[in-house]
Protein backbone atom coordinates (compact mmCIF):
# COMPACT_ATOMS: atom_id res chain seq x y z
CA UNK A 1 0.00 0.00 0.00
CA UNK A 2 2.79 2.48 0.90
CA UNK A 3 4.57 1.74 -2.35
CA UNK A 4 1.37 2.50 -4.21
CA UNK A 5 0.86 5.80 -2.39
CA UNK A 6 4.46 6.90 -2.94
CA UNK A 7 4.25 5.97 -6.59
CA UNK A 8 1.06 7.96 -7.07
CA UNK A 9 2.49 10.94 -5.18
CA UNK A 10 5.58 10.95 -7.39
CA UNK A 11 3.44 10.70 -10.53
CA UNK A 12 1.45 13.74 -9.54
CA UNK A 13 4.49 16.05 -9.55
CA UNK A 14 4.96 16.22 -13.34
CA UNK A 15 1.19 16.55 -13.74
CA UNK A 16 1.09 19.54 -11.39
CA UNK A 17 4.07 21.14 -13.13
CA UNK A 18 2.46 20.73 -16.57
CA UNK A 19 -0.90 22.04 -15.39
CA UNK A 20 0.83 25.09 -13.99
CA UNK A 21 2.80 25.51 -17.22
CA UNK A 22 -0.27 25.29 -19.47
CA UNK A 23 -2.09 27.91 -17.44
CA UNK A 24 0.99 30.08 -17.12
CA UNK A 25 1.58 29.96 -20.88
CA UNK A 26 -2.07 30.73 -21.74
CA UNK A 27 -2.17 33.65 -19.32
CA UNK A 28 1.15 34.88 -20.68
CA UNK A 29 -0.47 35.26 -24.09
CA UNK A 30 -3.36 37.07 -22.41
CA UNK A 31 -1.06 39.48 -20.68
CA UNK A 32 0.52 41.14 -23.69
CA UNK A 33 3.14 43.50 -22.34
CA UNK A 34 1.86 45.03 -19.09
CA UNK A 35 5.01 47.11 -18.58
CA UNK A 36 3.63 49.86 -20.83
CA UNK A 37 0.54 50.22 -18.67
CA UNK A 38 2.76 51.02 -15.67
CA UNK A 39 5.58 53.24 -17.00
CA UNK A 40 4.98 56.80 -18.14
CA UNK A 41 4.72 57.51 -21.88
CA UNK A 42 8.14 59.20 -22.14
CA UNK A 43 10.03 56.50 -20.21
CA UNK A 44 13.50 55.71 -21.52
CA UNK A 45 14.62 52.24 -22.63
CA UNK A 46 16.46 51.76 -19.35
CA UNK A 47 13.46 52.74 -17.27
CA UNK A 48 11.30 50.25 -19.15
CA UNK A 49 13.87 47.50 -18.70
CA UNK A 50 14.19 48.28 -14.99
CA UNK A 51 10.41 48.26 -14.55
CA UNK A 52 10.22 44.97 -16.43
CA UNK A 53 12.75 43.42 -14.13
CA UNK A 54 10.95 44.80 -11.08
CA UNK A 55 7.73 43.18 -12.28
CA UNK A 56 9.54 39.90 -12.92
CA UNK A 57 8.77 39.96 -16.63
CA UNK A 58 12.29 39.72 -18.06
CA UNK A 59 13.59 36.54 -19.67
CA UNK A 60 11.92 33.88 -21.83
CA UNK A 61 8.61 32.19 -21.06
CA UNK A 62 10.34 29.11 -19.66
CA UNK A 63 12.69 31.18 -17.48
CA UNK A 64 9.76 33.17 -16.08
CA UNK A 65 7.78 29.97 -15.56
CA UNK A 66 10.56 28.41 -13.49
CA UNK A 67 10.86 31.59 -11.47
CA UNK A 68 7.10 31.41 -10.92
CA UNK A 69 7.29 27.79 -9.75
CA UNK A 70 10.17 28.65 -7.45
CA UNK A 71 8.08 31.42 -5.93
CA UNK A 72 5.10 29.08 -5.66
CA UNK A 73 7.11 26.61 -3.59
CA UNK A 74 7.68 29.35 -1.02
CA UNK A 75 4.04 30.45 -1.19
CA UNK A 76 4.66 33.46 -3.41
CA UNK A 77 2.33 33.88 -6.40
CA UNK A 78 3.27 37.47 -7.11
CA UNK A 79 1.33 40.65 -6.40
CA UNK A 80 -1.98 41.79 -7.79
CA UNK A 81 -1.72 44.61 -10.36
CA UNK A 82 -4.85 46.21 -8.96
CA UNK A 83 -4.87 45.86 -5.17
CA UNK A 84 -1.07 45.41 -4.94
CA UNK A 85 -1.75 42.70 -2.39
CA UNK A 86 -0.16 39.28 -2.25
CA UNK A 87 -2.07 36.91 -4.58
CA UNK A 88 -1.53 33.90 -2.33
CA UNK A 89 -3.00 35.72 0.65
CA UNK A 90 -6.03 36.91 -1.30
CA UNK A 91 -6.54 33.39 -2.59
CA UNK A 92 -6.31 31.86 0.86
CA UNK A 93 -8.84 34.29 2.31
CA UNK A 94 -11.29 33.38 -0.48
CA UNK A 95 -10.65 29.63 -0.53
CA UNK A 96 -12.55 28.66 2.68
CA UNK A 97 -15.72 30.28 1.28
CA UNK A 98 -15.49 28.26 -1.92
CA UNK A 99 -14.65 25.05 -0.05
CA UNK A 100 -17.60 25.54 2.26
CA UNK A 101 -19.90 26.14 -0.71
CA UNK A 102 -18.52 23.02 -2.45
CA UNK A 103 -19.01 20.97 0.69
CA UNK A 104 -22.66 22.00 1.12
CA UNK A 105 -23.17 21.48 -2.64
CA UNK A 106 -21.93 17.92 -2.42
CA UNK A 107 -24.15 17.19 0.58
CA UNK A 108 -27.14 18.60 -1.32
CA UNK A 109 -26.25 16.59 -4.43
CA UNK A 110 -25.75 13.34 -2.52
CA UNK A 111 -28.84 13.94 -0.40
CA UNK A 112 -30.99 14.24 -3.50
CA UNK A 113 -29.35 11.80 -5.87
CA UNK A 114 -28.76 8.68 -3.80
CA UNK A 115 -32.32 8.26 -2.48
CA UNK A 116 -33.77 9.24 -5.87
CA UNK A 117 -31.47 6.85 -7.74
CA UNK A 118 -32.30 3.98 -5.39
CA UNK A 119 -36.06 4.62 -5.62
CA UNK A 120 -35.79 4.74 -9.42
CA UNK A 121 -33.77 1.52 -9.63
CA UNK A 122 -35.87 -0.44 -7.13
CA UNK A 123 -39.10 0.58 -8.85
CA UNK A 124 -37.67 0.22 -12.35
CA UNK A 125 -40.07 1.28 -15.16
CA UNK A 126 -42.66 2.46 -12.65
CA UNK A 127 -44.04 5.99 -12.52
CA UNK A 128 -41.54 6.83 -9.75
CA UNK A 129 -38.68 5.76 -12.01
CA UNK A 130 -40.01 7.77 -14.97
CA UNK A 131 -40.53 10.91 -12.89
CA UNK A 132 -37.03 10.67 -11.35
CA UNK A 133 -35.45 10.17 -14.75
CA UNK A 134 -37.34 13.09 -16.29
CA UNK A 135 -36.24 15.28 -13.39
CA UNK A 136 -32.65 14.15 -13.84
CA UNK A 137 -32.79 14.90 -17.57
CA UNK A 138 -34.18 18.38 -16.94
CA UNK A 139 -31.50 18.97 -14.31
CA UNK A 140 -28.79 18.00 -16.80
CA UNK A 141 -30.22 20.26 -19.50
CA UNK A 142 -30.59 23.36 -17.35
CA UNK A 143 -27.75 25.91 -17.29
CA UNK A 144 -26.79 26.29 -13.61
CA UNK A 145 -26.65 30.09 -13.57
CA UNK A 146 -30.17 30.27 -14.98
CA UNK A 147 -31.41 27.94 -12.25
CA UNK A 148 -29.73 30.32 -9.79
CA UNK A 149 -31.64 33.27 -11.27
CA UNK A 150 -34.92 31.34 -11.08
CA UNK A 151 -34.25 30.40 -7.45
CA UNK A 152 -33.63 34.08 -6.66
CA UNK A 153 -36.91 35.07 -8.35
CA UNK A 154 -38.92 32.44 -6.46
CA UNK A 155 -37.28 32.15 -3.04
CA UNK A 156 -35.92 35.64 -2.43
CA UNK A 157 -38.05 38.02 -4.47
CA UNK A 158 -41.49 36.34 -4.50
CA UNK A 159 -41.46 34.38 -1.24
CA UNK A 160 -38.77 36.32 0.61
CA UNK A 161 -37.52 33.21 2.42
CA UNK A 162 -33.83 33.35 1.58
CA UNK A 163 -31.33 36.12 0.78
CA UNK A 164 -30.59 36.72 -2.91
CA UNK A 165 -26.86 37.07 -2.39
CA UNK A 166 -23.98 37.89 -0.09
CA UNK A 167 -22.85 35.75 2.80
CA UNK A 168 -23.98 37.67 5.88
CA UNK A 169 -26.85 35.33 6.72
CA UNK A 170 -24.67 32.27 7.37
CA UNK A 171 -26.32 29.00 6.47
CA UNK A 172 -29.33 30.78 4.94
CA UNK A 173 -27.11 32.47 2.35
CA UNK A 174 -25.48 29.23 1.30
CA UNK A 175 -28.66 27.29 0.47
CA UNK A 176 -29.50 28.85 -2.89
CA UNK A 177 -25.95 28.85 -4.34
CA UNK A 178 -25.48 25.27 -3.17
CA UNK A 179 -28.68 24.19 -4.92
CA UNK A 180 -27.63 26.10 -8.02
CA UNK A 181 -24.42 24.11 -8.37
CA UNK A 182 -25.81 20.93 -6.85
CA UNK A 183 -28.82 20.45 -9.14
CA UNK A 184 -26.82 19.48 -12.21
CA UNK A 185 -24.55 17.28 -10.15
CA UNK A 186 -27.55 15.66 -8.45
CA UNK A 187 -29.09 14.96 -11.85
CA UNK A 188 -25.91 13.30 -13.06
CA UNK A 189 -25.46 11.33 -9.84
CA UNK A 190 -29.10 10.16 -9.83
CA UNK A 191 -28.53 8.58 -13.21
CA UNK A 192 -25.30 6.91 -12.14
CA UNK A 193 -26.79 5.69 -8.85
CA UNK A 194 -29.72 4.20 -10.73
CA UNK A 195 -27.61 2.36 -13.29
CA UNK A 196 -25.13 1.19 -10.66
CA UNK A 197 -27.98 -0.13 -8.49
CA UNK A 198 -29.56 -1.85 -11.49
CA UNK A 199 -26.27 -3.63 -12.12
CA UNK A 200 -26.07 -4.86 -8.55
CA UNK A 201 -29.74 -5.81 -8.21
CA UNK A 202 -29.27 -8.47 -10.88
CA UNK A 203 -26.41 -10.20 -9.05
CA UNK A 204 -26.76 -13.72 -7.73
CA UNK A 205 -25.89 -12.78 -4.16
CA UNK A 206 -28.99 -10.64 -3.96
CA UNK A 207 -31.14 -13.51 -5.14
CA UNK A 208 -29.39 -15.62 -2.52
CA UNK A 209 -30.14 -13.07 0.20
CA UNK A 210 -33.74 -12.96 -0.87
CA UNK A 211 -33.92 -16.77 -0.86
CA UNK A 212 -32.60 -16.77 2.70
CA UNK A 213 -35.54 -14.57 3.64
CA UNK A 214 -33.66 -11.31 4.33
CA UNK A 215 -36.21 -8.47 4.43
CA UNK A 216 -36.29 -6.39 1.22
CA UNK A 217 -35.32 -3.12 2.98
CA UNK A 218 -32.26 -4.75 4.47
CA UNK A 219 -31.32 -6.28 1.10
CA UNK A 220 -31.34 -2.87 -0.53
CA UNK A 221 -29.54 -1.11 2.31
CA UNK A 222 -26.91 -3.66 3.27
CA UNK A 223 -26.32 -5.78 0.18
CA UNK A 224 -27.21 -3.69 -2.84
CA UNK A 225 -26.34 -0.13 -1.86
CA UNK A 226 -22.95 -0.95 -0.34
CA UNK A 227 -21.80 -2.57 -3.56
CA UNK A 228 -23.42 0.00 -5.76
CA UNK A 229 -21.67 2.82 -3.91
CA UNK A 230 -18.15 1.95 -5.14
CA UNK A 231 -18.62 3.20 -8.72
CA UNK A 232 -20.68 6.13 -7.39
CA UNK A 233 -17.75 7.31 -5.24
CA UNK A 234 -15.43 7.44 -8.26
CA UNK A 235 -17.94 9.40 -10.29
CA UNK A 236 -18.31 11.75 -7.35
CA UNK A 237 -14.56 12.35 -7.21
CA UNK A 238 -14.43 13.32 -10.87
CA UNK A 239 -17.33 15.70 -10.28
CA UNK A 240 -15.37 17.73 -7.74
CA UNK A 241 -13.74 19.57 -10.61
CA UNK A 242 -17.18 20.40 -12.03
CA UNK A 243 -18.33 21.68 -8.64
CA UNK A 244 -15.40 24.09 -8.53
CA UNK A 245 -16.15 25.12 -12.13
CA UNK A 246 -19.83 25.59 -11.32
CA UNK A 247 -18.94 27.71 -8.34
CA UNK A 248 -17.53 30.34 -10.74
CA UNK A 249 -21.04 30.94 -12.06
CA UNK A 250 -22.92 30.52 -8.79
CA UNK A 251 -20.56 32.87 -6.96
CA UNK A 252 -21.12 35.50 -9.64
CA UNK A 253 -24.90 35.15 -9.49
CA UNK A 254 -25.07 35.19 -5.69
CA UNK A 255 -22.19 37.60 -4.96
CA UNK A 256 -20.51 34.88 -2.91
CA UNK A 257 -16.96 35.99 -2.00
CA UNK A 258 -15.15 32.86 -3.18
CA UNK A 259 -12.39 31.94 -5.60
CA UNK A 260 -14.70 31.84 -8.62
CA UNK A 261 -15.70 35.46 -8.25
CA UNK A 262 -12.09 36.40 -7.56
CA UNK A 263 -11.18 35.02 -11.00
CA UNK A 264 -14.08 36.70 -12.80
CA UNK A 265 -13.42 40.07 -11.16
CA UNK A 266 -9.70 39.79 -11.85
CA UNK A 267 -10.36 39.10 -15.55
CA UNK A 268 -12.57 42.19 -15.72
CA UNK A 269 -9.71 44.25 -14.29
CA UNK A 270 -7.06 42.50 -16.42
CA UNK A 271 -5.32 41.55 -13.17
CA UNK A 272 -3.30 38.72 -14.70
CA UNK A 273 -1.22 37.61 -11.66
CA UNK A 274 -4.43 37.06 -9.69
CA UNK A 275 -6.08 35.11 -12.52
CA UNK A 276 -2.99 32.94 -13.08
CA UNK A 277 -2.50 32.31 -9.37
CA UNK A 278 -6.13 31.42 -8.72
CA UNK A 279 -6.36 29.12 -11.75
CA UNK A 280 -3.10 27.35 -10.92
CA UNK A 281 -4.06 26.85 -7.28
CA UNK A 282 -7.56 25.62 -8.14
CA UNK A 283 -6.40 23.04 -10.66
CA UNK A 284 -3.79 21.84 -8.19
CA UNK A 285 -6.53 21.43 -5.64
CA UNK A 286 -8.56 19.37 -8.11
CA UNK A 287 -5.56 17.19 -8.95
CA UNK A 288 -4.74 16.57 -5.30
CA UNK A 289 -8.35 15.77 -4.38
CA UNK A 290 -8.52 13.32 -7.26
CA UNK A 291 -5.29 11.73 -6.08
CA UNK A 292 -6.67 11.34 -2.55
CA UNK A 293 -9.84 9.77 -3.91
CA UNK A 294 -7.76 7.34 -5.99
CA UNK A 295 -5.80 6.34 -2.90
CA UNK A 296 -8.95 5.81 -0.83
CA UNK A 297 -10.41 3.89 -3.72
CA UNK A 298 -7.36 1.64 -3.97
CA UNK A 299 -7.69 0.98 -0.28
CA UNK A 300 -11.27 -0.15 -0.80
CA UNK A 301 -10.66 -2.08 -4.01
CA UNK A 302 -7.31 -3.93 -4.20
CA UNK A 303 -7.66 -4.48 -7.95
CA UNK A 304 -6.85 -0.80 -8.62
CA UNK A 305 -3.62 -0.95 -6.68
CA UNK A 306 -2.37 -3.96 -8.61
CA UNK A 307 -2.30 -1.88 -11.80
CA UNK A 308 0.50 0.21 -10.39
CA UNK A 309 2.46 -2.13 -8.13
CA UNK A 310 3.46 -5.48 -9.54
Amino acid sequence: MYRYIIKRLLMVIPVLLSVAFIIYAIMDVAEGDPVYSVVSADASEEEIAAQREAMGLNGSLVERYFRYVKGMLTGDLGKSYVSKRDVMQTYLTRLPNTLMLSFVTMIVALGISIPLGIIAAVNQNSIKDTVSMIMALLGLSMPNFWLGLLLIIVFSLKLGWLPSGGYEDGIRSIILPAFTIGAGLAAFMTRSTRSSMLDVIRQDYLRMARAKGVPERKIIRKHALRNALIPIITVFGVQFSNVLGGSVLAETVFAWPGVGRLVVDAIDQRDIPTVTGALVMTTMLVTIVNLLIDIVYAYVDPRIKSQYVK
Partner: protein
Amino acid sequence: MRDQAVEKKERASQKYKKRSSLMSIWRQLRKNKGAILGIILLVLIVGVALGSPYIFNYEEQVIANNIKQRMQPPSAEHWFGTDDMGRDIFARVCYGARYSLAVGVIAVMFALVFGVTLGAAAGYIGGVFEDVTMRVCDIFSSIPSVLMAIAVVSALGKSTFNLMIAVGIASTAPFIRVARAAVLTIRGEEYIESARAIGSPEWLIVVSHILPNCVSQIIVQATLRVGSAIISAAQLSFLGLGVPAPAPEWGSMLSAGRAYIRDYSYMTLYPGIAIMVTVLSLNLIGDGLRDALDPKLKR
Protein backbone atom coordinates in the same frame (compact mmCIF):
# COMPACT_ATOMS: atom_id res chain seq x y z
CA MET B 1 -37.55 -17.93 -63.71
CA ARG B 2 -34.35 -18.95 -62.02
CA ASP B 3 -32.77 -15.54 -62.68
CA GLN B 4 -35.72 -13.84 -61.07
CA ALA B 5 -35.33 -15.95 -57.97
CA VAL B 6 -31.63 -15.11 -57.74
CA GLU B 7 -32.35 -11.45 -58.25
CA LYS B 8 -34.99 -11.50 -55.56
CA LYS B 9 -32.59 -13.15 -53.18
CA GLU B 10 -29.91 -10.59 -53.95
CA ARG B 11 -32.29 -7.76 -53.46
CA ALA B 12 -33.37 -9.24 -50.14
CA SER B 13 -29.78 -9.55 -48.98
CA GLN B 14 -29.05 -6.00 -50.05
CA LYS B 15 -32.07 -4.83 -48.13
CA TYR B 16 -30.90 -6.81 -45.16
CA LYS B 17 -27.44 -5.31 -45.35
CA LYS B 18 -28.80 -1.80 -45.42
CA ARG B 19 -31.16 -2.50 -42.58
CA SER B 20 -28.32 -3.88 -40.50
CA SER B 21 -26.61 -0.51 -40.28
CA LEU B 22 -28.43 2.82 -40.47
CA MET B 23 -31.91 1.40 -40.71
CA SER B 24 -31.65 -0.68 -37.59
CA ILE B 25 -30.46 2.35 -35.63
CA TRP B 26 -33.42 4.32 -36.93
CA ARG B 27 -35.81 1.47 -36.09
CA GLN B 28 -34.51 1.39 -32.55
CA LEU B 29 -34.62 5.14 -32.26
CA ARG B 30 -38.19 5.29 -33.58
CA LYS B 31 -39.39 3.19 -30.64
CA ASN B 32 -37.87 5.63 -28.15
CA LYS B 33 -40.47 8.29 -27.36
CA GLY B 34 -37.89 10.58 -25.76
CA ALA B 35 -35.64 10.49 -28.82
CA ILE B 36 -38.57 11.30 -31.12
CA LEU B 37 -39.51 14.25 -28.92
CA GLY B 38 -35.86 15.35 -29.04
CA ILE B 39 -35.76 15.13 -32.84
CA ILE B 40 -38.99 17.13 -33.18
CA LEU B 41 -37.71 19.82 -30.81
CA LEU B 42 -34.34 20.02 -32.54
CA VAL B 43 -35.92 20.28 -36.00
CA LEU B 44 -38.10 23.14 -34.70
CA ILE B 45 -35.10 24.93 -33.18
CA VAL B 46 -32.98 24.51 -36.31
CA GLY B 47 -35.98 25.76 -38.32
CA VAL B 48 -36.22 28.85 -36.13
CA ALA B 49 -32.48 29.43 -36.43
CA LEU B 50 -32.53 29.16 -40.22
CA GLY B 51 -35.80 31.06 -40.65
CA SER B 52 -35.26 33.99 -38.31
CA PRO B 53 -33.35 36.20 -40.81
CA TYR B 54 -36.39 35.99 -43.12
CA ILE B 55 -38.89 36.76 -40.36
CA PHE B 56 -37.05 39.47 -38.44
CA ASN B 57 -35.04 42.42 -39.65
CA TYR B 58 -31.74 42.10 -37.74
CA GLU B 59 -30.85 45.79 -37.83
CA GLU B 60 -34.29 47.12 -36.93
CA GLN B 61 -35.90 44.47 -34.76
CA VAL B 62 -33.06 42.56 -33.10
CA ILE B 63 -30.32 45.06 -32.22
CA ALA B 64 -31.80 48.55 -32.68
CA ASN B 65 -32.59 50.47 -29.48
CA ASN B 66 -36.15 51.66 -29.08
CA ILE B 67 -36.29 53.38 -25.71
CA LYS B 68 -40.01 54.27 -26.03
CA GLN B 69 -40.85 50.58 -26.02
CA ARG B 70 -38.61 49.84 -23.02
CA MET B 71 -39.53 47.12 -20.48
CA GLN B 72 -42.89 46.14 -21.91
CA PRO B 73 -44.28 43.00 -20.26
CA PRO B 74 -45.27 40.10 -22.55
CA SER B 75 -48.25 41.06 -24.73
CA ALA B 76 -49.85 40.22 -28.07
CA GLU B 77 -47.48 42.62 -29.80
CA HIS B 78 -44.34 41.52 -27.94
CA TRP B 79 -44.85 37.85 -27.08
CA PHE B 80 -41.92 37.68 -24.63
CA GLY B 81 -41.96 41.41 -23.75
CA THR B 82 -39.16 43.90 -24.47
CA ASP B 83 -35.81 44.40 -22.77
CA ASP B 84 -34.03 47.38 -21.23
CA MET B 85 -33.22 48.77 -24.71
CA GLY B 86 -36.78 48.30 -25.93
CA ARG B 87 -35.84 45.35 -28.14
CA ASP B 88 -38.36 42.57 -28.71
CA ILE B 89 -37.23 39.58 -26.62
CA PHE B 90 -39.06 37.07 -28.84
CA ALA B 91 -37.11 38.22 -31.90
CA ARG B 92 -33.88 38.12 -29.92
CA VAL B 93 -34.52 34.65 -28.52
CA CYS B 94 -35.28 33.33 -32.03
CA TYR B 95 -32.16 34.96 -33.48
CA GLY B 96 -30.15 33.70 -30.52
CA ALA B 97 -30.70 30.11 -31.67
CA ARG B 98 -28.33 30.89 -34.55
CA TYR B 99 -25.51 31.83 -32.16
CA SER B 100 -25.99 28.98 -29.72
CA LEU B 101 -26.30 26.29 -32.36
CA ALA B 102 -23.40 27.66 -34.39
CA VAL B 103 -21.10 27.95 -31.37
CA GLY B 104 -22.13 24.52 -30.03
CA VAL B 105 -21.77 22.69 -33.33
CA ILE B 106 -18.57 24.37 -34.51
CA ALA B 107 -16.88 24.01 -31.10
CA VAL B 108 -17.74 20.32 -31.01
CA MET B 109 -16.62 19.82 -34.63
CA PHE B 110 -13.29 21.35 -33.66
CA ALA B 111 -13.07 19.09 -30.59
CA LEU B 112 -14.13 16.07 -32.64
CA VAL B 113 -11.64 16.49 -35.47
CA PHE B 114 -8.80 17.29 -33.11
CA GLY B 115 -9.72 14.76 -30.43
CA VAL B 116 -10.52 11.84 -32.72
CA THR B 117 -7.33 12.33 -34.73
CA LEU B 118 -5.19 12.42 -31.60
CA GLY B 119 -7.07 9.63 -29.86
CA ALA B 120 -7.09 7.32 -32.88
CA ALA B 121 -3.39 7.96 -33.46
CA ALA B 122 -2.65 7.32 -29.79
CA GLY B 123 -4.57 4.06 -29.80
CA TYR B 124 -3.09 2.88 -33.08
CA ILE B 125 0.54 3.92 -32.68
CA GLY B 126 0.80 3.20 -28.97
CA GLY B 127 4.11 3.50 -27.12
CA VAL B 128 5.49 6.82 -25.96
CA PHE B 129 3.15 8.81 -28.20
CA GLU B 130 0.14 7.19 -26.54
CA ASP B 131 1.52 7.77 -23.03
CA VAL B 132 2.22 11.43 -23.69
CA THR B 133 -1.15 12.05 -25.36
CA MET B 134 -3.07 10.39 -22.57
CA ARG B 135 -1.14 12.24 -19.86
CA VAL B 136 -1.82 15.56 -21.58
CA CYS B 137 -5.45 14.46 -21.81
CA ASP B 138 -5.50 13.76 -18.05
CA ILE B 139 -3.97 17.16 -17.37
CA PHE B 140 -6.58 18.91 -19.47
CA SER B 141 -9.41 17.07 -17.73
CA SER B 142 -8.13 18.06 -14.30
CA ILE B 143 -8.62 21.73 -15.17
CA PRO B 144 -12.33 22.54 -14.63
CA SER B 145 -13.67 23.16 -18.15
CA VAL B 146 -15.25 26.51 -17.29
CA LEU B 147 -11.95 27.79 -15.93
CA MET B 148 -10.11 26.42 -18.95
CA ALA B 149 -12.48 28.20 -21.32
CA ILE B 150 -12.21 31.41 -19.27
CA ALA B 151 -8.41 31.29 -19.49
CA VAL B 152 -8.47 30.68 -23.26
CA VAL B 153 -10.95 33.49 -23.94
CA SER B 154 -9.02 35.94 -21.83
CA ALA B 155 -5.85 34.97 -23.71
CA LEU B 156 -7.34 35.22 -27.20
CA GLY B 157 -9.73 38.12 -26.58
CA LYS B 158 -13.52 38.28 -26.61
CA SER B 159 -15.12 37.30 -29.90
CA THR B 160 -17.56 34.71 -31.17
CA PHE B 161 -14.81 32.78 -32.95
CA ASN B 162 -12.57 32.71 -29.87
CA LEU B 163 -15.54 31.52 -27.83
CA MET B 164 -15.85 28.55 -30.21
CA ILE B 165 -12.14 27.79 -29.87
CA ALA B 166 -12.27 28.04 -26.06
CA VAL B 167 -15.29 25.77 -25.74
CA GLY B 168 -13.78 23.43 -28.32
CA ILE B 169 -10.49 23.09 -26.44
CA ALA B 170 -12.38 22.51 -23.21
CA SER B 171 -14.36 19.63 -24.78
CA THR B 172 -11.54 17.86 -26.66
CA ALA B 173 -10.40 15.42 -23.95
CA PRO B 174 -13.52 13.16 -23.99
CA PHE B 175 -13.14 12.64 -27.75
CA ILE B 176 -9.49 11.61 -27.34
CA ARG B 177 -10.57 9.04 -24.74
CA VAL B 178 -13.48 7.63 -26.74
CA ALA B 179 -11.51 7.37 -29.98
CA ARG B 180 -8.53 5.74 -28.29
CA ALA B 181 -10.67 3.22 -26.42
CA ALA B 182 -12.57 2.34 -29.60
CA VAL B 183 -9.37 1.93 -31.63
CA LEU B 184 -7.81 -0.23 -28.93
CA THR B 185 -10.69 -2.70 -29.01
CA ILE B 186 -10.86 -2.80 -32.80
CA ARG B 187 -7.10 -2.90 -33.42
CA GLY B 188 -6.88 -6.53 -32.34
CA GLU B 189 -9.69 -7.78 -34.58
CA GLU B 190 -8.92 -10.33 -37.27
CA TYR B 191 -10.12 -8.23 -40.19
CA ILE B 192 -7.54 -5.60 -39.34
CA GLU B 193 -4.85 -8.23 -39.44
CA SER B 194 -6.11 -9.50 -42.79
CA ALA B 195 -6.16 -5.97 -44.19
CA ARG B 196 -2.54 -5.64 -43.14
CA ALA B 197 -1.74 -9.05 -44.62
CA ILE B 198 -2.98 -8.02 -48.07
CA GLY B 199 -0.71 -4.98 -47.87
CA SER B 200 -3.03 -2.06 -47.07
CA PRO B 201 -1.05 0.97 -45.97
CA GLU B 202 -1.40 1.83 -42.28
CA TRP B 203 -3.25 5.12 -42.79
CA LEU B 204 -5.78 3.38 -45.04
CA ILE B 205 -6.42 0.77 -42.37
CA VAL B 206 -7.11 3.47 -39.81
CA VAL B 207 -9.29 5.57 -42.09
CA SER B 208 -11.28 2.88 -43.86
CA HIS B 209 -11.44 0.04 -41.35
CA ILE B 210 -10.93 1.33 -37.84
CA LEU B 211 -12.64 4.73 -37.81
CA PRO B 212 -15.91 3.61 -39.45
CA ASN B 213 -16.28 1.04 -36.70
CA CYS B 214 -16.11 3.59 -33.91
CA VAL B 215 -18.30 6.16 -35.66
CA SER B 216 -21.33 5.25 -33.59
CA GLN B 217 -19.68 5.94 -30.24
CA ILE B 218 -18.26 9.19 -31.56
CA ILE B 219 -21.68 10.32 -32.82
CA VAL B 220 -23.25 9.67 -29.41
CA GLN B 221 -20.47 11.56 -27.69
CA ALA B 222 -20.75 14.44 -30.16
CA THR B 223 -24.53 14.80 -29.74
CA LEU B 224 -24.24 14.98 -25.97
CA ARG B 225 -21.23 17.31 -26.17
CA VAL B 226 -23.03 19.85 -28.38
CA GLY B 227 -25.51 20.26 -25.52
CA SER B 228 -22.84 20.87 -22.92
CA ALA B 229 -20.93 23.14 -25.34
CA ILE B 230 -24.07 25.28 -25.69
CA ILE B 231 -24.27 25.55 -21.90
CA SER B 232 -20.55 26.41 -21.62
CA ALA B 233 -20.89 29.08 -24.30
CA ALA B 234 -23.90 30.58 -22.51
CA GLN B 235 -21.97 30.54 -19.24
CA LEU B 236 -19.06 32.43 -20.76
CA SER B 237 -21.39 34.96 -22.38
CA PHE B 238 -23.15 35.36 -19.04
CA LEU B 239 -19.78 36.23 -17.49
CA GLY B 240 -19.23 38.74 -20.28
CA LEU B 241 -16.59 36.64 -22.04
CA GLY B 242 -18.59 35.37 -24.99
CA VAL B 243 -20.40 36.80 -27.98
CA PRO B 244 -19.98 40.62 -27.76
CA ALA B 245 -23.04 42.91 -27.37
CA PRO B 246 -25.44 43.77 -28.93
CA ALA B 247 -25.69 40.33 -30.53
CA PRO B 248 -28.69 38.39 -29.17
CA GLU B 249 -26.83 35.56 -27.44
CA TRP B 250 -28.93 33.74 -24.83
CA GLY B 251 -26.27 33.85 -22.11
CA SER B 252 -25.64 37.58 -22.50
CA MET B 253 -29.41 38.22 -22.58
CA LEU B 254 -29.62 36.49 -19.20
CA SER B 255 -26.73 38.59 -17.95
CA ALA B 256 -28.59 41.76 -19.02
CA GLY B 257 -31.81 40.51 -17.45
CA ARG B 258 -30.08 39.86 -14.16
CA ALA B 259 -29.77 43.60 -13.50
CA TYR B 260 -33.57 43.96 -13.70
CA ILE B 261 -34.47 40.71 -11.97
CA ARG B 262 -36.34 42.45 -9.15
CA ASP B 263 -38.92 44.24 -11.26
CA TYR B 264 -38.78 42.65 -14.70
CA SER B 265 -38.17 38.98 -14.02
CA TYR B 266 -39.67 37.95 -17.40
CA MET B 267 -36.41 39.13 -19.01
CA THR B 268 -34.54 36.24 -17.40
CA LEU B 269 -37.18 33.65 -18.20
CA TYR B 270 -37.29 33.11 -21.95
CA PRO B 271 -33.59 32.95 -22.94
CA GLY B 272 -33.10 30.36 -20.18
CA ILE B 273 -36.02 28.27 -21.42
CA ALA B 274 -34.53 28.45 -24.90
CA ILE B 275 -31.17 27.12 -23.68
CA MET B 276 -32.85 24.37 -21.66
CA VAL B 277 -35.09 23.18 -24.49
CA THR B 278 -32.19 23.13 -26.96
CA VAL B 279 -29.91 21.18 -24.62
CA LEU B 280 -32.78 18.90 -23.61
CA SER B 281 -33.48 17.99 -27.24
CA LEU B 282 -29.81 17.12 -27.80
CA ASN B 283 -29.66 15.07 -24.59
CA LEU B 284 -32.82 13.15 -25.55
CA ILE B 285 -31.37 12.35 -28.99
CA GLY B 286 -27.97 11.45 -27.53
CA ASP B 287 -29.48 9.12 -24.93
CA GLY B 288 -31.71 7.56 -27.57
CA LEU B 289 -28.80 7.01 -29.96
CA ARG B 290 -26.72 5.45 -27.22
CA ASP B 291 -29.49 3.01 -26.37
CA ALA B 292 -30.09 2.26 -30.03
CA LEU B 293 -26.42 1.61 -30.77
CA ASP B 294 -25.75 -0.42 -27.67
CA PRO B 295 -28.85 -2.32 -26.58
CA LYS B 296 -26.88 -3.80 -23.70
CA LEU B 297 -27.01 -0.42 -21.96
CA LYS B 298 -30.75 -0.18 -22.29
CA ARG B 299 -32.77 -1.30 -19.36
